[in-house]
């Protein structure tokens, strides 16, 4: 499905203006041309990606990305409740925050993933990296997403990865948060499989991971 730049601009403007009605309207107009998941993937997700890129380039604030994500979350919930936005075929995926109670990234990532039809379990804040790995193994998780804020918490991902490998689990670990953005070596250092600076880039990253697993 091809979405015109006009529709994309309208979706982006609606997200930045926090105008849910306008967003509903542009999505509805495009539903005549594609299934719902397609509209989310080709219209809403790119609009949110544009906003994420503008944040990366310093043109927008994280607060604006967050608020736009919140709007998308509401729209996704409406469509999930109606049963019209089906989940894709995928490995089991969960997301957790390691240690920090004052973090933003999880909600941004979950909004991006839900919009793309990914089913992701929210495991909340976890303080014990070994217990996190054991749960991931016990539940047969394919991908574990971990968000962190503090350098020390980010380094504890090494304990998650170490425990997973000791258990023989093949769970892929994807990390995110400021410590990984400011220290690009850290992802490799803790043994994680991948990282990305932008929440809106996580769906594409998962596509790649699932494709090669």
């Amino acid at each position: 499905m091809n979405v015109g730049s006009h529709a994309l601009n309208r979706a982006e403007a609606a997200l930045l203006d926090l105008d849910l009605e306008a967003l509903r309207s542009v999505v509805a107009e495009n539903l005549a041309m594609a299934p719902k998941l397609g509209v989310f993937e080709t219209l809403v997700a790119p609009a949110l990606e544009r906003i994420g890129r503008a944040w990366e380039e310093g043109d927008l604030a994280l607060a604006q990305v967050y608020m736009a994500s919140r709007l998308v979350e509401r729209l996704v919930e409406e469509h999930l409740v109606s049963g019209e936005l089906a989940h894709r075929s995928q490995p089991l995926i969960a997301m957790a925050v390691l240690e920090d109670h004052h973090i933003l990234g999880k909600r941004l990532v979950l909004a991006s993933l839900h919009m793309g039809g990914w089913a992701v379990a929210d495991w909340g804040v976890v303080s014990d990296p070994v217990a996190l790995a054991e749960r991931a193994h016990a539940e047969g998780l394919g991908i574990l997403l971990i968000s962190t804020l503090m350098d020390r918490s980010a380094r504890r991902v090494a304990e998650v990865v170490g425990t997973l490998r000791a258990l023989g689990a093949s769970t892929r670990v994807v990390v995110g948060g400021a410590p990984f953005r400011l220290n690009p070596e850290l992802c490799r250092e803790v043994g994680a499989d991948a990282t990305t600076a932008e929440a809106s880039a996580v769906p594409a990253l998962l596509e790649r991971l699932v494709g090669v697993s």
Partner: protein
Amino acid sequence: MTMLLKPAERLGAALSHQEGDRVPFFLAVTLHPARALGLSIQDYLSDPEAVVEGQLRMRHSLGHDAVTSFLHVAGEVEAFGGETLFRTDGPPNTGTPPLTRAAAIERLRVPDPTQVPTLARSLTVARGLKARLGDDVPILGGLVGPLSLPVVQLGFERYLDWLMDAPDLIRQLWRINEAFCIAWGNAQLAAGVSAVAIAEPLVSSTLLPKDLLRKEGLPALRRVREGIQGAVALSSASAPMGSLLPELSELGFVGLAPSCDESLAEAKATLRGRVALMGGLNGLVMSHWTPQDAELAVKEAIRAAGAGGGFVLAEHHGEIPWCVSEEILMAVAEAVRRWGAYPLDWTAM
């Protein structure tokens, strides 16, 4: 050859935009002294005498130009009912945010920082350092700014949710935080600190919208700066100051520390002759530095911002991570002594 200055004179020269004997530097080693003293981080931070001893030891071994009485961020959240979670291998963190209901903010009064155990310990540290060092070595105090405190008071999500859904509630909290920051800064000055550094990552337009910062954030910071009766510096603790840097430089701070991702040379050009620039070192990457990497980083920072004074070499995030070795800290110190002596003739080569 230039006569060797005392640390206070060296920093004074830098803040006056003069070249002293060398570029002053300060490494925020708030945790490392515990290792040197053979104490756990919790035991160390809970004992003001140990912190005084630890800061003096680090000052002696590194030869840097200041000490700090700052203990940890979580202490400030205690003032609002928050808890401190100690770690064995990193800084204490705050627990569950204490203010989760609108009614809690409506009832909130400005806490007295001298009655908060962790903050009172920090004041004891300041008094102890002042008694041992007099006026020769500056003592840096610290506090979290009024815009950033809500991240730990409410949690980041709730902060932004309320900013969108209940902005008056957030404005009320900002006003309480302003008053608290002023009281806490002045208490530290009364206890003997030479300057107060405000950590305010939320002043970055990468986090809050620029219009909101211009309309409400910068005026709040100006009021806090004016309310604190002494020298105040501002750090965005790794978040970019970006295009707001010129406006921040008009607020009366003696020094500004932007993000490690921003160009030191450009920031120096913006601030030259008016406000000192602080920074140059990214503490988060120090753990995989070799001593040679440390020397190179110091040289690059001094080359970019050292000439003409007005520069204090420091780490941007506000705290050297626990995993950074003492060997690397010593290599930084040694490199400053080797490459930081004024005049910086080598930078022209």
